[in-house]
């Protein structure tokens, strides 16, 4: 207490401007993010998706086993039969289309627009937490939600797959068998890759969040964007536009189920996500710098 009194006695004196440690701010942000009931409910429900898929597949047993040499979600599901380690990959590829972006954009919506709506953003600006630092701290919060979302789906998918479906190692789409350890690594890899894609969605959502006081606008805009990307991708006349669409590379998730694993699609997807993150964060910082507190 005495130290703070001393500081108050000689304020704004000289260069050593007091500021709260960035780590402390991040810790505070994470506490807040991970305590919010709706974040927990959303993550919990997301984690249940692989379980639901696993249970459904087990109960309806004997769907056309091994019918899925094609790429994409539904065919991946067919490949799950008798091949438990495909389940986490299939679950990731299904949830990443809409459910996971929904959870991530919700976190981004609460991060800035939600705080503004509650009047708590003003408190942070008055503390003061610098505006650039504020966006960075918020970005970490959103990133953690993205990582948790992808990680949880991968973990519950892996567990469900092993327990309900089983299988010794992973039978790839190419027909070869990958041992359990390597297969688990591949699941972890694809979970990380999905988290990166979700970080890209989160960064863009954060940029929208920085420009409005209404969390609902952020979620609606993010979802509309993803749906619009889907529509644009289905129009072959616009194929010159496809390389810049975030969702264009998402089909590469199934690549980890091939042997040898093709890396080009995954790397391109990572690069694309990186660009979206950069653009999203830049816009978020620019908008926050001039925003009314």
């Amino acid at each position, binding site marked *: *207490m005495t*130290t*703070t*009194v001393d*500081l*108050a006695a000689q*304020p*704004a004196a000289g260069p050593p*401007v*007091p*500021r*709260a*440690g960035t780590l*402390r*701010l991040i*810790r*505070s942000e994470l*506490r*807040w993010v991970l*305590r*919010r*009931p709706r974040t927990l409910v959303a993550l919990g429900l997301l984690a249940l998706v692989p379980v639901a898929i696993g249970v459904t597949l087990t109960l309806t047993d004997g769907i056309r086993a091994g019918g899925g040499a094609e790429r994409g979600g539904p065919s991946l599901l067919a490949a799950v039969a008798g091949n438990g380690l495909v389940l986490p990959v299939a679950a990731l590829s299904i949830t990443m289309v809409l459910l996971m972006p929904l959870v991530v954009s919700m976190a981004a919506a609460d991060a800035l627009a939600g705080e503004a709506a*509650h*009047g*708590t*953003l*003003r*408190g*942070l*600006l*008055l*503390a*003061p*937490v*610098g505006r650039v630092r504020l966006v960075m701290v918020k970005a970490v919060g959103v990133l953690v939600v993205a990582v948790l979302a992808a990680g949880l789906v991968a973990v519950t998918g892996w567990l469900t797959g092993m327990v309900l479906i089983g299988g010794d190692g992973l039978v790839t789409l190419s027909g070869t068998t990958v041992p359990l350890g390597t297969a688990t690594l591949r699941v972890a890899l694809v979970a990380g890759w999905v988290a990166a894609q979700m970080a890209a969605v989160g960064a863009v959502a954060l940029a929208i969040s920085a420009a409005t006081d209404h969390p609902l606008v952020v979620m609606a805009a993010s979802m509309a964007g993803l749906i619009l990307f889907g529509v644009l991708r289905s129009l072959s006349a616009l194929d010159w536009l496809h390389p810049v669409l975030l969702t264009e590379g998402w089909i590469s998730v199934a690549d980890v189920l091939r042997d040898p694993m093709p890396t080009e699609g995954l790397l391109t997807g990572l690069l694309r996500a990186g660009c979206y993150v950069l653009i999203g964060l830049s816009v978020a910082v620019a908008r926050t710098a*001039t925003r*009314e*507190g």
Partner: protein
Amino acid sequence: MTSVPLAARHGVGAAEAAPTPAARTAGLRKAYGDTIAVDGVDLLVPEGAVLGMLGPNGSGKTTTIRMLLGLTAPTAGTVEVFGRPMPDAAAEVLPFVGALVEGPGFHPFLSGRENLLRCAMAEPLLPGRAGQRQLRLAVDDALERVGLGHAATRRYRGYSLGMKQRLGLAAALLVPRRMVVLDEPTNGLDPAGTREVRQVVAQLHAAGTTVVVSSHLLSEIEATCTHVAVMNRGSLVAQGELADLLDAGTPTLEVSTPDREAGLDALRAAGVAARAEPGGLLVELTGTDAPSAVATLVRAGVAVHEARRRRTGLEELFARLTEDER
């Protein structure tokens, strides 16, 4: 509109004695599109003063406060806090400023203590190596100070309006400040809460903290402030020390007496202006003083039950300043 006529007469002299005012604005203007919220405001907050900002709704009090705190960028004009330009020097200045602006802002799903802890973790003046325990101590101190100790673990969602207001006050008082800015601090508070806010302001003042309080409650300002700034329709119409502003009108003595006619006659005979009001007389103290006016009455055999100096009253002053331009 003639801006700050009274300041020229009463306020500036006192303020010039202090070298650096806690806050100062010059030619401050804020326009939102075609709407001009604040125009030509030259506000001066002397160090250590308790400045009451007074004005009808929409007169620009909150906008001015928001510009003082760097939350809103002025369209034109300059703001200085502790002699540093705002909002550029916000990082240096704001740690020493506590503020409650536009109502309390907290998260409904967290308890009062958790909400304050979140504020504390962003608070630069709570030392970097402060463990969770030290932060909690600061938080509990602040909660006790505003009388929320008993509700610390309850969710903010369930707080009454007054409790929310108190929590906002607690956040502004988390660490000792050099200046505290309170925008309508007594909104939603019961009389006991209002009294407590007054006590908090008095404590801050006693500790040498500069306080800026905006309120539409005149009695609030009159009871707690040393200085007053009156705003009307985006302009500062008066500022200065409270006592000076109150004495600016004609000094008057209020005499309660049953013999009004006799009293009036006696005073007129002595050349003192007076008029009757229910229950007594109003004596204008121009060219005379209270003792001789009372002596005149008593010598004439008029029964004087009570005589007291009547100040103009903030309400009257306020009405005069904000209504004569319509």
